[in-house]
């Protein structure tokens, strides 16, 4: 990353500059409508192409990506994204087609979607898939809307409670609220697993479902999964999976076998499509037969040789104006086809191996709240450093000076001063060793020269930012006159 002078687009805008030339009108002009429909004045930029390119290039240099270096952001699966998948997604026949073209004019795209539905159903051990959700949180929304529709169809619309573990992602309770469901929080026990007794106590006639991330956000596989599934189903509830952590089970374990009725995936995490600075994503939902009729519209149905968009008979409806984020699906499809079953298994095995390696190497230096084998990520606590006056935030910021992106911090909330590290399978042992060395040095700094950490980062394009001030007096845009 590189420091450079701060300026904004209006600072390089001058009359008579242009970033693009457009052709002259080649048809006779028609009179414009009456004045009240017309825009009085359009105040927008006038910037030349070269200045524009330099501006955005300088911005890009103030940013850190997976291509820049190690990005162990827990729960986000920041793995390397193969370059050729980007090229495939840009094939004109994939990129330059309209969503409302008749299906018979886009058989290749329809076939790709149809196959991806099946591939994801096989990978998750489910019976049917809808690719419609445009991100993980929208996949969750689809899941819980299906839960409601399912219970309503059985005359059980009174089932309005969703049980959510205390370690869950914030999207889980937020989604439940969007679906008119009441959230009941279940505590974790001392091993980081779900507290079965609390689950049994909270499950009642009004419970609609348990939403469970597996492995959990503590990076642990809950060995009680069969008991959990049994008790939820016995009491008439559904088991809904948050597939955020699928990277650790890929090619090894199927959600369907574990008893889940529905799981939402994040193609932009597990299936190696880049995250784009916050999107686009894609959040397909895979379900067992009992929920298939409720899937969000559209699905691609294969009838003999022809593929068509269809709407499931009792669909919860559409989630967007088209069929989902096709550009992301193309990359995920390429990923699965290029790896095959053995390749996917290699992914999860190396992801889990890398995380356990970091866990063992850092255990002497950082407090490990759950000292057991982890899956694809490991959660430490910065408690020991906190006692020396060094917060987890300081550790994270100091890592930037060592050239690494920080892990996820302060999540899950059930771990005090949480430091959540997800190395992914695409990192070499050399990279992991360099990161471990940096973390060990930072632990030593926290011990001997905590002030070094309070001021960190020292080497980034900007220093620590005033977030409180930003929220108190919001400056959310520039104005041009």
């Amino acid at each position, binding site marked *: 990353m590189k420091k450079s002078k701060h300026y904004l687009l209006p600072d390089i805008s001058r009359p008579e500059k242009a*970033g693009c030339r457009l052709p002259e009108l080649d048809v006779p002009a028609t009179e414009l409508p009456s004045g009240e429909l017309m825009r009085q004045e359009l105040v927008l930029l006038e910037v030349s192409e070269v200045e524009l390119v330099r501006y955005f290039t300088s911005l890009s240099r103030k*940013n850190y990506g997976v291509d820049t270096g190690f990005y162990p952001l827990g729960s986000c699966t920041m793995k390397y994204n193969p370059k050729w998948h980007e090229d495939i997604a840009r094939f004109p026949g994939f990129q330059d087609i309209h969503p409302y073209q008749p299906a018979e004019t886009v058989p290749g795209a329809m076939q790709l979607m149809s196959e991806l539905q099946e591939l994801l159903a096989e990978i998750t051990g489910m019976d049917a898939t809808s690719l419609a959700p445009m991100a993980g949180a929208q996949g969750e929304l689809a899941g819980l809307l299906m839960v409601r529709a399912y219970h309503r169809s059985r005359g059980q619309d009174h089932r309005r409670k969703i049980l959510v573990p205390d370690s869950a992602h914030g999207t889980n309770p937020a989604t439940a609220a969007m679906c008119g469901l009441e959230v009941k929080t279940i505590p974790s026990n001392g091993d980081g697993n779900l507290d079965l007794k609390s689950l049994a106590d909270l499950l009642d006639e009004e419970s609609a479902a348990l939403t469970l991330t597996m492995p959990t956000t503590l990076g642990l596989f809950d060995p009680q999964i069969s008991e959990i599934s049994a008790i939820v189903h016995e009491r008439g509830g559904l088991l809904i999976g948050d597939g955020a952590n699928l990277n650790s089970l890929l090619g090894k374990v199927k959600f369907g076998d574990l008893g889940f009725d529905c799981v939402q995936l994040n193609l932009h995490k597990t299936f190696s499509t880049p995250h784009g600075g916050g999107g686009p994503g*894609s959040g397909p939902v895979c379900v067992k037969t009992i929920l298939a009729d409720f899937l969000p519209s559209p699905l691609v149905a294969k009838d003999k040789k022809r593929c068509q968009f269809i709407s499931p008979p009792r669909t919860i409806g559409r989630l967007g104006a088209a069929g989902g984020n096709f550009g992301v699906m193309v990359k995920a499809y390429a990923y699965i086809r290029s790896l095959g079953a053995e390749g996917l298994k290699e992914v999860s095995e190396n992801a889990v191996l890398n995380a356990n390696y970091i866990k063992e190497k850092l255990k002497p230096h950082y407090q490990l709240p759950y000292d057991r084998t982890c899956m694809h990520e490991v959660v430490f606590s910065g408690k020991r450093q906190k006692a020396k006056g060094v917060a987890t935030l300081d550790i994270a910021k100091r890592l930037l000076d060592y050239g690494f992106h920080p892990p996820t911090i302060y999540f899950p909330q059930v771990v005090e001063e949480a430091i959540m590290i997800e190395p992914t399978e695409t990192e070499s042992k050399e990279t992991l060793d360099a990161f471990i060395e940096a973390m060990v040095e930072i632990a030593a700094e926290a011990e001997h020269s905590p002030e070094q950490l309070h001021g960190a980062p020292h080497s980034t394009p900007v220093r620590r930012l005033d977030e409180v001030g930003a929220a108190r007096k919001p400056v959310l845009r520039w104005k041009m006159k």
Partner: protein
Amino acid sequence: MPSPYIPNTDQDRASMLRDIGAGSVAELFQDIPARFRDVPFHLPPPLTELELKGEMSELSRQNACLDEYVCFLGAGYYRHFVPSVVGHITGRSEFYTTYTPYQPEASQGVLQAIYEYQSLVCQLTGMEVSNAGMYDGGSAAAEASLMACRITGRRNIAVLSTVNLRYREVIGTYGRGQDITMHELPPDFKEMPDKCACLVVQQPNFFGYFEDVARYAKLAHDAGALLIVIFDPISLGLFRPPGSYNADVAVAEGQPLGNPLNFGGPGLGIFTCRQEHLRQMPGRIVGQTIDAEGQTGYVLTMATREQHIRRERATSNICTNEALVALAATVYLAAMGKNGLRRVAELCYHKAHYAAENISKLKGYSLAFKQPFFKEFVVRCPQPLEKINRILRKEKIIGGLDVSHMVDNGMLLCVTEMNSRQEIDRLVSILGSL
């Protein structure tokens, strides 16, 4: 051969396992009950880059690609010119391989670009504030109606029947989750239904025609409801922006701003509103601030509205959005600038009117509506649409959307700056020969 994406060698793995104190990788999976582990996965065999590129290229070539076919299809997704500079900037991997900017010191590039996006969208729409974007136009409209319910404390919403059917469906999906009742109103309605949180209108409407938005603004506001406007961002190069006719929330599909069609996704949900509703807005927002040395910098702000802080009391569950598409829109708006955007809108307007005039002169064809329109219009055709579109396809033309369920033999045609006079003349001549 080893995987190009897994750099660990067998030797590395052996040495790491030794450090962990495990005999094998399998041991690391022992928390998972044995019967669930290492089950068979029936997937096609792996292919190399060379093989799969060939196969997928063939798959892509089965599609009627619009750089080969002439396109008169719109209805919410539009084929506009995308200058090369857009792809070159969004193709910088510092942008596209980064996560949501949670660590601002390592994310100033993305954060400042979103600040530019928010600013440009506000300049374009005349609205006071913009968020960093939603999934698409449809879900942005749905979130806008939920926001109106939160602001007014009401559980009914009104939507004009001239709003894109797909958008109405998405609004319905989101509304059902919270038991919100949706009323569909004809364009000539005289009175708002009781206790509505909002009135949702589209300008220009689904059929391409301009609505009397001033009338709708008054009807909505007199009933204590918010006016939610779905707009076409390209139209704002020439026509009145929602901020100038009292919209409370204005949303749009942002795909036309510098993005290919991509078979409908990824798109971009543009979401803007009045300043007073800022704290009820869904989605990410970037704000300007200063760092410890007083330098200007940017952060994600107003996060107390969001799911990762507020959990079940958040304004929305949205987390990942469409940041890279928003970056493309930013570069597009900056590259086009005020003169370019106006020119694009003018080209669309004049070419669409040239096409409409010439088609309406053909025997058996007429325009279905009389109001002024922008780049789309509905033609009544002498024959069923399916047949007409099939004939057009043989001539390598993708015709307009079949709207015969709303207008007899109706075709919704779209003409943009991408359509040359020659293409329009060819369309007219084929339609005339049927």
